[in-house]
Every structure is written in C-alpha cells, then in structure tokens.
C-alpha cells in the first residue's frame, strides 16, 4: 500500500515538475518536487516509514518520513499546483484562450493527465466525493459568481433572470426527462430498466448550464447588457434550482412508487428550499455588513469576516437542507455593497482577490478532474441513449428559450429579439456543476455509469463544440452590443438625470414599477440601512463619487507621469531657473509627444464604481488602478480633503513661490486673474452676458477655465487635468473659508500652485510647439520668483500667465 502511495506521489510530482518545465517557469518551481522525486525511489525497497538504513537502530532517527500522515493535504496541494501550472501555461500564448475557451484547454490537459495515469494503472484522486464537492468545491465557485454579480443590471432584469433560471430549468429537466423516458421504452436501445424518476434525475443534472466560456466571449465582444446578465444570472440561479431538483429527484428515485401527494410536497419543498436559502443569505449578509462596521481597528482580519459569514450562510443552509447556493449568493449580494464601504481599500482588494482566487482554482480543478475522470472511469457507452440525450438537451434548450421569451417579452421593456434568443439558447453550455452532480450520484442507481458517461459526453460536446464556435457565431450574426466603458462625468450625470426623470414620470403616472421600487429602496437604504450598517454613513451621490474618483485619478496621473517634470520645476528650492529654460534641454519633442499620448489615453478612464463584468478567471481590471489608489491614497487624499488642504498646501506654496501669505498678490498678479478666480466662486454671475455671443470681458472671464482649452490644441485632456484640479480647489477652499482677507491670500497661493502644475503641462506643450523660438530667446536665470519674472518675457511661454494680458487688449 505504501508502495502504491509513494508511486502515486511520485507520478504526481513528476507530472507537476514536468508541467512546470513546460510552462517555462522554472524559477517559480518550489524545490519540493524535484527533491521529492529523488527522495521517493530509495523508499521502495525499504517498505517502511523510515528512510535510511541507519534508522533501523533504536537510536533517535536522524531522518524520518511519514508520508501517510501528510498524504491527503500533500496530494491536494500537488493537484492544485498542477492545475495552476496548466493555467499559467495557457496564458503563455494569449491568443489560444481567445479562440479556445479555457475550460476546453483544462479538460484537454485533464485528458492527457488521465491518459498518463491510466497507462500506469493509477487510481484517479478520490477527492471528488459528494461531501468534498458540496462542502469545499462548490461554495467558492458560487461565492465568486455572487460577489461579482453586476448588481444594477441584475436587478433591472431580475424577473427575466429568475424566469429563465427557475422555469427554464424546470422546463429542461422535465422535458428532457420525459423524452428520455419515452426513448427508454424502445427495446432496441436496451435501457428499459431506467424508470421515470431516474430519467428525471439525470435530466435535472444535465440541465444545469455553466456558461463561463460563453460569458468570457460575451464580455469580449461587448454583447448587450441584458443578454449578458440573463446568461450570467441564469447560470447562477439554475445551479440552485438544479441542486434542489437533484436532491428532490434523488430522494424520489429511491421511492418505489410516487403518489400525487408527493408531487405537491415536492413543489412546496421547492419553494421552501429556494426562499429559505434566500432568507438565510440576506440575514447573514446583513450580519456580515454590520460586523464590518466595527472592524476598523482590526484591519488585518477584516477580509476573513466576509468569507466566514458567506461560508456560514452556506453551511447553515446546508444544515437545514435548504438551498445553500441561494444562501451564499444572496449573502454575497447583500453584503457586498455595505462591506466594500466599510472595509479599507486594502481589505477590499484582498477580498476580491481571494474570492476570485478560490473560485477560479475550484473551477479549474473541477474541469481538470473532468478530463482525468473521463479517461480513468469505466464507461458504459450506449449510443442510443447518449445521442438522444444530446439531441434532447439541444432541442429542449432551444425550444425553452423560444417559448419562454415569447412569454416574458411582453413584460420586458426591451424585448429579446431573435438574435438575443439565439445567444441565450446557444450559450447553454454544461459544465462543472453537471459533472460533479453526476459523479456524486448515489451508487444505488442502477445505471450510474451510463449517466456519468452521458453527462461527460454532453459536457464535452457543448464545451468544445459550442464553446469554440460561439464567438464567430455571435460576431457573425451581430448581436446588439453595448458600450460599457463610458466613464465620463457627463454620462454619469445624465444617467442619474434619466433615472430621476423616469422615476418622476412613474410617480406622476401613479405607477409602481421598476424605478419606483428602486427609488423607494434607495430612500430606505439611505435612511435606515446605511445608518445601521455603515460606519461612515453619509449618503453620497454616485455623481460625486465618480467626480472624486476622476479627480483623484487626475492627480495621480499628474504625479505619475509628470513626477520627474514637476520635480524639475518645483522641487528646486529657490527657483532660480525659469520655466521654459529647463525642459527644453531635458525633453525632446518625441518625449513630449509620448507624454501627451499617455495622458490623453489615460486621462478619463476611471475606475468603475461597481465591478461591471467579470469573467470567472480574472479579477476585474480595475485592480491595477486600485493598487495605485492604495499607493497614492493617503497622500493625495490628505491633500484633497478640505480640512487639511490649506494647512498642507500653504507652506508649500510659500516654498515654491516665495510669496508671503499676507503680501498682496494683486501687485504681481494682473487684476484679471483675480477676477477669474472670483467669478468662479461667485454664486451668481452675469448669466446674460456669459451666454451672449460676443465674448465680453466678463463672459470670457466667467468661462475662464474653459478658455484655457484654446491654448491646447494637441492634448485637450492634459488641460482638463489642470482645470479639474483648479475647480475643486476653489470649491474646496471656499467651503471652509469665508471671504475674509486672511483666507484670500492662501487661496491664491493654492491657485497659483496648481496653475504651476498645470502650467507646466501647458508649458510643455508650448515647448513642443515653440521650441525653436524659445531657444533663440535665452532665459535670464534670475533669482526672482517665476511669477514676478513673468510679465517681462512670458508672453508666449505660458498661456495661463499670458492670459491676463490678453484681456485688457481685448477690451
């Protein structure tokens, strides 16, 4: 036995190390595998736990080995490593995963490993028992889907999602089950011994769709949001339905006769199970949110609560034999919003990473085992039954989508057209859940092997055939698409505007519908839930949130891209050099163009507020921004926060511009600058004139921040940075300062310091344009401050500084 074990371990290790070599990540391979390979062979002749002959003496053994003790976790670790290496391998050449879904590749690898194991007469791993699957493998997968569920589209389409998930699954199970039962009556196939209950059980197994691959494709081609969310939600909730059906049918399958009363009880149980799961999920979700309210002092264990509570919800639901999938999904949905506001940025990232990691490894393993098991188990192949299963699965799915959409379409604001329906029907891949359910069928089912074989056949068929062909097909029939990457503030404002408009119109019509409920829920949420569940419970409009984020990002962009540049300008202590003299030497035109490109590309791509669409295997792509956020968070936040703003910035501006706080800037600043500043801060400024066609003086002043655009012809976004920053500065500084003289001066410093930054950006551009001109005009490197030097020779250099002189001219 020991020999056997060690041989297994050795085989695994060899596989593992082989893979690691394959993947070309030799550097990352832990020393363990190679060591293991060399250590294991000497044991074989010994046939005992001790490794070395010296240990035969009764002395204290110098070197011992106790493999059975670590066997299980050891093998699990190795399997996981193997699967992970496989995943690394796929992404070495990224184009593979575009055309062939990852699940296909995993299954293929599994097939290869299975073939190797089969050739050495090796047993497949015994980890896939019912308990292991339901208690350890399933929760991470479902938590992953639930946690990253795009909330808004989901609730907008919740009716359709549930309709397809519940009714669609029932339709498929019963349809396929009945038709298969009919097939079983044909003597030629030799499967008359399968009764109706078993057929239904089998049908419920294979009606669980798991379209991970499809979702990836949908996401890549930007398929419209309604279709996406229906497929997403369907796969999530029909897992729940399938598991319920599975439990019900496997109970029924053991009964000799089924009475009508049992059917009614079954239906009642169905609702108890589903709604009960939801109830537990919501309960635990709120408790989790409430707990994270108090974790501000124990940040290090913050993420743990999320996992523990979700798992607890799952286990408790399992305890009462209600739908544990429902429980964990609703738990994740409920707590996500509140938890992410309570926990720190770091914990939030951790939570997302770990949820993704667990879900993805769990699924990888299942697909991997699917491949292995396909080879290593004994199959019972019955052409008739399996082919008819395939046929019925396909036909009933198609029919179901057609019929169910006809019923649901009148209730939908945007009906599904035929293309959408095709996407829905064709996206019905079978996957991990079906396989695991089939594999964990109780042994007392007579044709278990046939069922397993048929399930594997249908999974392989759908995953390979449909999974590979869906991308070209979707692109070919040109399904309606949605552009999701709109992160501009205008869009956000108008989304809100539209929502409120619709809510208003609905109210006006006295109608209770989607927006009515959303409105009511938001009110309830803001008034009660947030107060209870969130530590810092100020309600924040999404516009403001977006705005802050944009601003933060802009600040970061400036810091990141122009770190060196600003350093050149600002950190030199005494500003003896003038603005334009230095960059000319340092930056070539090409560099400048590069910078413009970088800036204009990155400027307004903001972090998405809610993680809109994720696929199962990658984290939402905001993670990178998040990392930056974390890095920059503290420093920038401090400087943007109203309270600390002046205190931190004033000394800086002193340093930079060597202007004492009390000194009247007006002497050095032309009055127009001040006006510019004040029109911005004035509550009411002359509307009439600002709208009038002629750019009168005041109107041009009122639109000053906008006018700065004109100085920028190449990279408008560069300019936006400066202005965005400036506008807030005004806003922020005004919120906590009255218009007293003592405050005015610092504010101007602020202003000027900011102008300095953005000015430098502008200046760069100017350099780019006017480099030859400036080269001919040597800058006197005087020790006077830049601002003071400006009136003398700054006419062409800095548009910002130049502007005050234009206004009088225009007048």
């Amino acid at each position: 036995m020991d020999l056997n074990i060690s041989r297994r371990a050795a085989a695994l290790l060899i596989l593992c190390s082989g893979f690691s070599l394959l993947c070309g990540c030799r550097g990352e391979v832990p020393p363990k595998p190679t060591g293991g390979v060399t250590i294991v062979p000497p044991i074989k002749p010994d046939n005992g736990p001790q490794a070395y002959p010296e240990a035969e003496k009764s002395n204290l053994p110098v070197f011992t080995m106790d493999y059975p003790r670590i066997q299980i976790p050891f093998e699990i670790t190795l399997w996981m490593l193997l699967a992970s290496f496989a995943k690394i391998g796929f992404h070495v050449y990224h184009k593979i995963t575009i055309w062939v879904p990852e699940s296909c590749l995993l299954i293929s690898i599994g097939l290869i490993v299975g073939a190797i194991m089969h050739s050495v007469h090796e047993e497949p791993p015994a980890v896939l028992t019912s308990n292991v699957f339901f208690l350890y493998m399933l929760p991470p997968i479902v938590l992953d889907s639930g946690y990253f569920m795009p909330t808004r589209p989901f609730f907008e389409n919740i009716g359709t999602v549930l309709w397809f998930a519940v009714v669609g699954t029932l339709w498929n199970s019963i349809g396929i089950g009945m038709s298969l039962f009919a097939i079983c009556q044909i003597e030629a196939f030799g499967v008359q011994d399968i009764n109706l209950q078993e057929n239904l059980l089998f049908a419920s197994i294979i009606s669980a769709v798991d379209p991970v691959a499809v979702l990836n494709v949908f996401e890549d081609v930007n398929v419209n949001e309604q279709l996406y969310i229906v497929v997403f939600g369907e796969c999530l909730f029909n897992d729940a339905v399938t598991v319920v059906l599975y439990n019900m049918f496997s109970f029924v399958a053991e009964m000799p006769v089924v009475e009508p009363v049992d059917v009614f009880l079954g239906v009642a149980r169905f609702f108890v199970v589903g709604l009960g799961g939801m109830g537990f999920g919501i309960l635990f979700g709120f408790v989790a949110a409430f707990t994270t309210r108090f974790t501000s002092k124990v940040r290090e264990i913050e993420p743990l609560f999320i996992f523990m509570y979700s798992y607890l919800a799952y286990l408790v639901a399992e305890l009462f034999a209600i739908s544990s999938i429902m429980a964990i999904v609703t738990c994740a949905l409920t707590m996500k919003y509140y938890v992410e506001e309570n926990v720190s940025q770091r914990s939030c990232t951790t939570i997302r990473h770990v949820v993704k990691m667990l879900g993805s490894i769990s699924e990888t393993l299942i697909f991997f085992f699917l491949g292995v098991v396909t080879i290593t188990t004994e199959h019972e192949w019955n052409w008739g039954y399996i082919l008819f299963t395939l046929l019925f699965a396909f036909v009933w799915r198609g029919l179901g989508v057609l019929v169910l959409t006809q019923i649901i379409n009148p209730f939908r604001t945007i009906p599904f057209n035929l293309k959408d329906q095709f996407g829905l029907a064709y996206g019905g891949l079978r996957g991990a859940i079906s396989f695991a359910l089939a594999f964990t069928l109780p042994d007392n089912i007579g044709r278990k092997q046939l069922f397993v074989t048929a399930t594997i056949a249908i999974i392989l068929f759908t995953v390979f055939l449909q999974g590979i062909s869906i991308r070209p097909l979707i692109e070919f029939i040109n399904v309606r698409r949605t552009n999701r990457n709109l992160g501009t503030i205008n869009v956000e404002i108008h989304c809100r505007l539209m929502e409120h408009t619709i809510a208003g119109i609905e109210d006006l019509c006295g109608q209770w519908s989607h927006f009515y409920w959303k409105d009511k829920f938001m009110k309830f949420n803001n008034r009660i839930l947030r107060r209870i569940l969130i530590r810092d419970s100020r309600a924040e409009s999404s516009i403001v949130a977006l705005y802050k984020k944009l601003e933060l990002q802009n600040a970061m962009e400036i810091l990141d891209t122009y770190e060196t540049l600003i350093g050149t300008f600002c950190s030199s202590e005494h500003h003896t050099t003038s603005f334009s003299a230095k960059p000319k030497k340092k930056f070539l035109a090409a560099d400048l163009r590069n910078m413009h490109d970088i800036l204009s590309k990155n400027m307004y791509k903001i972090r998405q507020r809610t993680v809109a669409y994720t696929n199962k295997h990658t984290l939402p792509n905001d993670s990178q921004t998040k990392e930056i956020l974390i890095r920059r968070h503290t420093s920038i936040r401090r400087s943007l926060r109203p309270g600390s703003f002046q205190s931190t910035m004033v000394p800086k501006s002193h340093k930079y511009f060597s202007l004492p706080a009390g000194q009247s800037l007006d002497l050095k600043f032309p009055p127009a600058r001040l006006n510019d500043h004040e029109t911005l801060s004035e509550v009411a400024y002359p509307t009439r004139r600002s709208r009038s066609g002629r750019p009168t003086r005041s109107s041009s002043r009122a639109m000053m921040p906008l006018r700065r655009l004109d100085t920028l012809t190449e990279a408008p976004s560069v300019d936006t940075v400066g202005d965005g920053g400036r506008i807030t500065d005004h806003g922020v500084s005004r919120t906590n300062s009255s218009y007293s003289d003592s405050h005015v001066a610092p504010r101007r410093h602020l202003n000027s310091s900011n102008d300095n930054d953005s000015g430098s950006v502008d200046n760069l551009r100017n350099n780019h344009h006017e480099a030859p001109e400036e080269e001919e005009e040597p800058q006197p490197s005087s020790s006077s401050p830049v601002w003071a030097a400006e009136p003398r020779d700054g006419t062409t250099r800095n548009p910002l500084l130049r502007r005050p002189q234009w206004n009088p001219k225009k007048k």
Partner: protein
Amino acid sequence: MRTNYRWISDVSSCCCLCFFSVSPEQIKNLHKRFQQLSDNEETISRENLEKIPALANNPIRKQIIDAFFDKRNQHQNEVGAFQEIGFEQFLMVMSHFRPPTLKTTEEEREAMRKEKLRFLFNMHDTDNDGTITLEEYRKVVEELLSKSGAIGLEAAKAIADAAMLEVASTNVPHMAPDDFYEGITFEHFEQILKGLEMESRMHIRFLDVDTMTMRCGKSKS
C-alpha cells in the same frame, strides 16, 4: 366615467396614428390617471402635478413638471410654455418614453433615441436658445445633488464645471485662442452621450402592458 370613455376613444384614435405602439387600453389607463390628477377637469395645471406626494422627493421635480408644460416637447415647432395642458399634450409628453418594440427598425430606433435626447436637452435648456450654458448645467447638477445632503452647492458647481470642460474638450478640441465655449449645442449633446445606451434607461413600460400596476398606483394615491 362612461361618458368620458367616448371622448377617449376619439383621442385614442387620433393618438394611435402618432404613437404606433399605444393601444386604446393603455390610453384609457393614462386617461384615468390624468383625470385623477386633474380632479376630473379637462386640463391639468402645474399645481395639480406639484401636489403629487410621490413626486415630492424627486430632486428634479421642477424640471420634470416643466417638461410637461414645455411646448417644445409637443413636436409642434413652438416654443414657450403652457399654463395648462390637456390630455393630448399629456400623452404627447408621455410618448417620449415609449420603448422600442421588436418591429422597430434601426432608423426608427435612431429617431426615438434622438427624440429622447431632445427631451433631456430641453430639460437642461430652460431658456430654449439652443445651447446649454454652464449656468443651466450647474443648475441641473445642483438639483440632482440637492437631495443627497452634505455635498453642497460648491461641489455641484465644481462637478458641473468639470462636466462642461469635458464636453468642451471632446467637442471642440481646436479652439482658437480668442473664443470660449458658449454652451452645449444639441449636436454636442448627442456627441457626448453617443455611446450611452438609452434603451434601458429612458423607457417606461406602461405604454405596453400595465393594467395591474395602474390599479396599484391608483389605490396608493
């Protein structure tokens, strides 16, 4: 009530021409609501709408009510504001929110989208001079944020300014040094919201099927 229905059928027959997706049944429902709001009068005035309790919490209540009395939303090429509107005008405003059906062609979809955008634009452009000025934009943003408490006017203003800048920078990248951005024209407005999906946002299903919900609304208010 009975007598009114005959009148409705007149209205509906003429309205059906312009709103191809509205059935007499739905118009009947809307008319019921209309009468409820107007206290069985022929016309509705601002006060009637302002009295709706459910609307009281809407931050842009004023804009919504104004939209109903705005002649620009009647497709008659008129400007100005009504003092009172009849059921026909009421329906006309409502028709902006009809969802596309399966039969709607691409061109019709585009036209509907434009119509909805125009509706939004008119909500911004209070003095109907064809542009949304910074002033007008700020006002709307302020209203939008007015219910969220601690944000305050300043932030709203800053946001409106930033949004305006965004519009300017996307639409007029090459401005001459002397001109300034006067306001958002409708073309610019279309441009900035180009990628935004309106289908899921600017539709109300009541023009489709909704006798149940109407009853709910009635019992409530």
